[in-house]
């Protein structure tokens, strides 16, 4: 098992030459650090921030496998001292050079304006709520839309970090199952941003709660399972989970006065006008009233046409902001690596905070394991059915099947566990106790946590698993995800 950071701590003879760079006012220093290299730096003068999160002075920060922009938001600029060391744990043959360049062409001023506008709305709402506590209103619900690699997540980070800096606590909703935001990939989550992000964590997010003490305050997300990294692998399941997440988030908004006036910021996978039904769903599920379109004139015009009625009745604002030149194309392997880091961090922690997972064995027959259905598979199964014939799976236990049918589009019971479909995969543990489970509940439940299956021994019927912590494992329904991972 290889862990980032362990055993590779800086021994003096290894520490490379330290360079320094001045970032002029309102400029960005863009860095792309591969996974083969550790990039250590500290801000020695001025104010520097990464996606809205301010960096401390003279405190060393270590990155590995990131594409970030360090921005100097104030007129005095800032100075950064940095050094790189190789990551010996990583034996791949990818490049190990750090790409770095300064850019004056930032869109940060527009993003800051966008934030100020939203904060203005929050201020009005919170004042209104103080005076009319009976008829309290909700803060802005912001939906960020844009194409692939346009910096949607960066903007979501910026907006929520700035909101936090001005004493608001918005809920950050991540609808892109590719990323695990305070959870693992294959999920969609909602997390109140009550403290800054921990940039050194995988994906630059931070820890969810642990049993002990952390250097950085953790966050408390609500996690819904999608089970795929691409949202359109099962669009029905994805939409269903979004509506469930929306319901929970809106309840929290109603209950939590601080969050109520701070509103919601929604990050999305790359969506285009062809996904309009999905966009409409999101808008109604989260009562979106501000849409921010990044760098896509066409999309914003199409949306304006589509939502003419809402725009004219002032229920909705659509604004567009330019795409940052710093938003780089990421290749599949990079995305995959970040996902792996996220999974590793979930179980083992990172170089600063080590977590202790627990290896054990589970009897496979004690658990019912479901698996998300790939829409493609379902379509191909149905394609072979004669027209007019309804789909009923054969097998014993017809009563059971009757019930199963409502799950058809979403999940199927993994009736034959095998090494091929379980080895090296991630299981989502649901909140749902196994006994007396109703089909509907499986769709409505959220994620309790994750376990990793390293091996399925089909002769003994035992799963070799990694649990996040030692102790009794609940007899809850499990969902096998399409997220693979090997230690």
């Amino acid at each position, binding site marked *: 098992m290889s862990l980032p950071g362990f055993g590779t701590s800086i021994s003096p003879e290894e520490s490379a030459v330290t360079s320094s760079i001045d970032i002029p006012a309102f400029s960005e220093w863009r860095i792309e650090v591969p996974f083969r290299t550790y990039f250590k730096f500290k801000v020695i003068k001025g104010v520097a921030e990464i996606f809205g999160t*301010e960096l*401390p002075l*003279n*405190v060393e920060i270590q990155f590995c496998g990131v594409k970030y922009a360090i921005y100097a*938001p*104030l007129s005095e600029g800032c100075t950064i001292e940095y050094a790189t060391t190789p990551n010996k744990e990583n034996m791949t043959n990818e490049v190990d050079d750090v790409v770095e360049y300064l850019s004056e062409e930032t869109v940060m001023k*527009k993003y*800051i*304006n*966008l934030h*100020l*506008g939203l*904060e*203005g*709305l929050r*201020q*009005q709402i919170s*004042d*209104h709520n103080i*005076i009319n*506590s*009976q008829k309290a209103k909700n803060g802005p619900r912001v939906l960020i839309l844009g194409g692939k690699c346009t910096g949607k997540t960066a903007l979501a980070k910026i907006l929520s970090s*700035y909101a936090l*800096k*001005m*004493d608001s606590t918005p809920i950050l909703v991540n609808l892109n199952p590719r990323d695990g935001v305070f959870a693992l990939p294959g999920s969609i989550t909602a997390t109140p941003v*009550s*403290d*800054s992000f921990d940039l050194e964590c995988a994906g630059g997010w931070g820890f*969810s*709660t*642990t*049993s002990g*003490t952390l250097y950085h*305050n*953790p966050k*408390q*997300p*609500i*996690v819904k399972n999608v089970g795929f990294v691409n949202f359109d692998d099962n669009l029905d399941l994805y939409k269903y989970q979004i509506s469930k997440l929306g319901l*929970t988030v809106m*309840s*929290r908004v109603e*209950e*939590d006065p601080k969050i109520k006036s701070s509103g919601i910021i929604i990050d999305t996978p790359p969506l285009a006008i062809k996904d309009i039904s999905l966009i409409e769903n999101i808008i109604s599920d989260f009562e979106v009233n501000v849409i921010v379109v990044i760098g896509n004139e066409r999309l914003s015009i199409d949306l304006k046409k589509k939502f003419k009625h809402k725009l004219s009745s002032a229920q909705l*604002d659509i*604004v567009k*902001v330019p795409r940052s030149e710093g938003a780089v194309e990421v290749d599949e392997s990079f995305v995959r690596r970040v996902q792996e880091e996220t999974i590793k961090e*979930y179980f083992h922690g990172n170089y600063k905070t080590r*977590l*202790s*997972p*627990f290896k054990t064995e589970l009897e496979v027959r004690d658990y019912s394991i479901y698996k998300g259905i790939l829409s493609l598979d379902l379509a191909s199964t149905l394609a072979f059915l004669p027209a007019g014939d309804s789909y009923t799976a054969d097998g014993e236990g017809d009563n059971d099947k009757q019930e199963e049918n409502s799950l058809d589009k979403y999940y199927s019971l993994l009736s034959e566990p095998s090494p091929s479909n379980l080895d090296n995969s991630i299981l989502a543990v649901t909140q749902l106790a196994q006994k007396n489970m109703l089909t509907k509940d499986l769709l409505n*439940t*959220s994620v*309790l*946590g994750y376990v990793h299956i390293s091996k399925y021994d089909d002769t003994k019927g035992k799963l070799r698993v990694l649990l*996040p912590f030692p102790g*009794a494992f*609940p007899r809850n329904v499990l969902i096998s995800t399409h997220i693979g991972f090997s230690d």
Partner: protein
Amino acid sequence: MDDQSSSIVEDYAQSLTELTFNSRPIIDNLTTIARENPLAAEGIIDAITKRIYKCIPDHKLFALFLLDSVCKYAGNSYNILVGEDIFHLYSHVFQYSSEQNRKTKLISLFETWKVTKTKGTNFPLFPSEQLEKIETFLNKAGYLRQKSNSPSNDLSVKQLIGDIDRLLPIFQNKMAHSSNQKLHDRFKALTQLKALLGTQAMTQKDLQAVQSQLKTIKEQELGNSAITPVPTPAVTPRATPRATPISTPGKPQQATTSKAEELFQILVNSGLVNVEQAPVPGSRPVYNLVQPKAKFVPSTNQIPSNSTLQEILNSNLSNSISRLVYGKLKFDKLMVVSKQISVNFQDFLNTNNSSDSLELLYDAKSSKCSICAKRFANDLEGSTKKRLHLDWHFRINKKLANSASKVQSRNWYLDDFDWVNFRDDDLLEFSTNTGAIGLDNIKKEDLGINGSGKPSFVQVPPSDTNMNNKCLVCQENIKASYNDELGEWCWFDCIRLPGEGPDSRKIIHVACFNEANKKRGPDGDLNAKVKREKI
């Protein structure tokens, strides 16, 4: 005739300055002069009122006694002249009086007003609505037994109006000294609020909201700068009006902090009232009003706005919400932003005026944590938060330096219901949540945590001779000290590890215990099973 009365008034005002102690001869003398010169009544009343408002707090009461005496014995025209102002005068004196004077003298003074008739007639001494106001005021301050059966914390519109009435003279006073626009705005907002209260039926919740706002305005206006919010005591002390004669000094009573006293203390702290006390134990402090040399400006950071009246109307009393320095600055800047975005959000994005508001993200919160770059404002809230924040860093570092407590694992996520009811404050360093999980099934008394704020301690087991001990969490050495009340040696600020017997030496700092038990995960049966003991 006019000359004569003006010279009388002059003499009268001169003699008033001698009223620096509770002297019956002076009061009698001045009352007689007043009775014999009814033509100078207006001037005399003016002189007395002026004296009440202007003299130092300790002398106010005597001037009020004189006023009382004049109204009672000189009778008509005096009591009518003073009539409409009596509430202001009374509440003014009340606010500046010591607790003892209030309970013994001012209350009984008021009681006499309720029964006294104007000399030679059957009319009440003062207008009944003024007396009602005083009564509401006293009720509000908790000095009178309430006659109604409603619980004392129930608010009535009347009380709130009384509250506002109490604030208005303060504003008027301030406006007389300063031409600050904001003061006028706030004054207006208050009058509007008063009208609103008078005309519209409001629910209890609304009233409470209004009340809390009023309270903060009061604090702000009187404190000039940031002041710790004064929580209204759940049970306000109430004194039975005592039958002590007004002009004899009352017996010392146990001082209970009242609102008015706190307000006075605030004045003292803010430097508006100067205290001189001889460095001799038991000497009486002498209070002097200090007229500030600089004009009162609520916040140095405020930008003047031309359309403030409109703002008040538009923002529906937003201005009356109390804010600290940072909150005010944010409000002012964002009001400008809000106006622009209400015209066109998109156009606002393309403007270049954000540099002005950048301050809100950085310089306005100039106090930056050197460890994690978190920023804090320089106002009271900011500095309190920073202190808690640094304490937290300290605790965390200490705890993490101890390898034993480093072992930790990821928690389960919450389910929908728990998440909806979860509050992120429990995750933060500012958490005041002492009733942490794990504590739920253990009674607090068992742990020796006293809710009443008494110090927590663990008695050294009688069989034990070793007085030195260690906190199980932070490993700090703890020495026992002698508890005089119990006559036992105790380890202070500690609790015994839950579940340990009375002879156990396993102790933990209360602070460490609470930190370790902060709510970090879901409750419930499931959690009880999977949660590891953290200490």
